[in-house]
C-alpha cells in the first residue's frame, strides 16, 4: 500500500536518533514482524529516493506505526525535523513477515539501531509464549536504543558496550556464548553488525542454534523493482533481494 501517514509524535532520543510515531490504519493493520516501510517526508525530487525503516511497533487498535531512525544524512535529518500533524508518504508493509514460530526460545543479538528490527518480532514471540533473550550492544551507552521496548518482552536483557559505559565492557558475542552454555536457545536473530552476522552464521553452522540475519541494503524502491539491494546467495546461484526475499534470512543462505 502507498499511503499518506500522519505524524503523531517525533521524539528525539539522544543526539543521533529519532523515535517516530505515525498513524496509518491500513498499514498498521496488516504489518507483520520483520517487515519494513519506505518513507518519504519531503515533496519534490531532492532527496530523490524514499528511505527504508523497520516497523518497530504497530498497533492495529491505535492505527499507529512506530519507526526508529538513526539520523545520518539529509533524508533522516528531514524526518527528524517533522512536526506532529505533518504528512509523510509511506509504502508498506514490505518484505517477508516472519511466519514460522515453531520454536520455544529465541535470542536477539543486536548492535546500535539494529535493535529496531527485532522489537516487533520479539513482541510476536512473547505473545506466543516463546522465551525471549535480548542482547544489546553498542560502542557506548548513548547508542543502546530500544531498550525500553525490549525490556518488558525479555526474560533476560543484557547489555554490552565497547567502552564499558553500560553493562558488560566487552564483546556481546561473549554474552551470547555464556547464554548458550547455560541453556538451549532454539533461534538467534541478529541485526546491525556484520561481525555479529558472521558470528551467528557460525553458530548456525556448528549447530549451536538456528541463526537468522536481518540485512540492510541500498534500495531505491523496496518493491523488488530496482534490484539495488542484492545480497549474494551462499550456494553461488545468484542474488537475493533484501527487500523482496528478506529483510531476514536464514544465516546459512547468504554470503556476508
Amino acid at each position, binding site marked *: 500500500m502507498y499511503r499518506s501517514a500522519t505524524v503523531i509524535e517525533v521524539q528525539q532520543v539522544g543526539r543521533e536518533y529519532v523515535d517516530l510515531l505515525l498513524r496509518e490504519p491500513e498499514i498498521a493493520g496488516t504489518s507483520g514482524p520483520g517487515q519494513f516501510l519506505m518513507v518519504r517526508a519531503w515533496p519534490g525530487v531532492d532527496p530523490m529516493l524514499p528511505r527504508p525503516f523497520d516497523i518497530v511497533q504497530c498497533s492495529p487498535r491505535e492505527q499507529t506505526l512506530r519507526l526508529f531512525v538513526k539520523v545520518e544524512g539529509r533524508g533522516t535529518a528531514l524526518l527528524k525535523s517533522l512536526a506532529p500533524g505533518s504528512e509523510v508518504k509511506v509504502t508498506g508493509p514490505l518484505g517477508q513477515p516472519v511466519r514460522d514460530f515453531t520454536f520455544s526460545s529465541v535470542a536477539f543479538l543486536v548492535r546500535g539501531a539494529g535493535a529496531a528490527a527485532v522489537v516487533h518480532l520479539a513482541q510476536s514471540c512473547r505473545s506466543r509464549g516463546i522465551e525471549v533473550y535480548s542482547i544489546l550492544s553498542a560502542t557506548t551507552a548513548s547508542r543502546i536504543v530500544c531498550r525500553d521496548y525490549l525490556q518488558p518482552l525479555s526474560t533476560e536483557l543484557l547489555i554490552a558496550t565497547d567502552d564499558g559505559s553500560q553493562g558488560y565492557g566487552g564483546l556481546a558475542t561473549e554474552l551470547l556464548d555464556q547464554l548458550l552454555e547455560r541453556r538451549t536457545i532454539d533461534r538467534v536473530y541478529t541485526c546491525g553488525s556484520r561481525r555479529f552476522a558472521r558470528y551467528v552464521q557460525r553458530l548456525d553452522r556448528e549447530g549451536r542454534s538456528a541463526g537468522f540475519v536481518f540485512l540492510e541494503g541500498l534500495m531505491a524502491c523496496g*518493491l523488488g*523493482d530496482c534490484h539495488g539491494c542484492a545480497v549474494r546467495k551462499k550456494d553461488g546461484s545468484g542474488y537475493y533481494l533484501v527487500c523482496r526475499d528478506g529483510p531476514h534470512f536464514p544465516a546459512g543462505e547468504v554470503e556476508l
Partner: protein
Amino acid sequence: MIDLSVEIAGVTLPNPVMPASGTYEVDPVHEGFFSPAELGAVINKTIFLNPRAGNPPPRIWETPCGMLNAIGIPSEGLHRFLEEQLPRLRSLGPPVIVSIAGNSLQEWRDLATAIGESGSADMIELDLSCPNLEQGFIWAADRQALSEAVSAVVEATPLPVISKLSPNVRDISEMAVVAEAAGTAVVSMVNSYLGMAIDVETRRPALGNITGGLTGPAIRPLAVHSVFSTFQKIRVPIIGIGGIATWKDAVEFLLAGASAVAVGTQNFVNPLAMREVIRGIAGYAEKSGFSSVRELIGLAQERHEP
C-alpha cells in the same frame, strides 16, 4: 472526453504512458497499487538469451535529483521468460513490448525470432544501450554495431522494432538516423548516462561496478533536448524517456516530439507515478482544449523559429 490513444508503428496504445524497462515488475504487490491494465503498454526487464546474475553490490547510489545504478540486468533467460513472465504480461490487456539484449548478432536474431514466434508480443525493444554490462560494449554508441543489430532483428521478426538509444554518444540524433536506415520502426531515448560517484568515507567508487547509469529528473533537460533535436531528422516515432516524475514532465516530452513516454526511476519513488502521469496528461490536454493527446506531439517544434 479526451482521446488519450496514440499509435506507434501500427500498434495503438490506449494512452502514451508506459514503464521504462526494468523499473516496474508486474506482480501482486504492484497490482495492489493500481491495475497495470491502465497502462499504455507493458514491458519486461530486459532479457538475455541465457540467465545472468547481475553485478555485485552496491548497485545503486543516490545523487541530486536522481540516482546511479549498476544493476547489470539480472535475467532469468529466454526460456523461463517465455514460460512464465510473457504469458503474465500478455494477460494484462495493454500492448506488450518485449525488451531484449543480445551479446552477439546471432543472439539478437535468436531472441527476436523466439519472441516473434511466441505470438505474445506486439513490439520488440532492443536494449542497445545499457552502460553496465561486463563487456562495457554499448551497441548504440557504434554506428556499425547499431546498424547491424537493428538489421539482424528486423530480418528475424515481423514485429515492429523499437531501438533504445544511448545518450553516451556525440549526437544521439545521428544514431537515430542510423537505426531508422537499418529498419527500426520506433526509437526510444534516452537510456542512462554513464557516470560514477565516489564514497568519501571509504574513498572507493560507490558502486560495485565502479561506473553506473545516471537516471532521474537530473537528466530530464538532456533527454528532452535529445528528443527535440531528433524529431525533425527521422520519420519514425519516438518514445521519450528520461527523468519523468510528473505529468508536466511527460507533456514536455510530447511537445518536444515524443509520441509516447516511459516512466522509470519515479516508479521507485512513487508506486502510483504512472497512473498520476496518465491522469495529469488527460487533465492538461482537456483543460487546454485539445480533443486528442496526439495533437500535442511535437508542438514545441512548430513554434521553433530557426
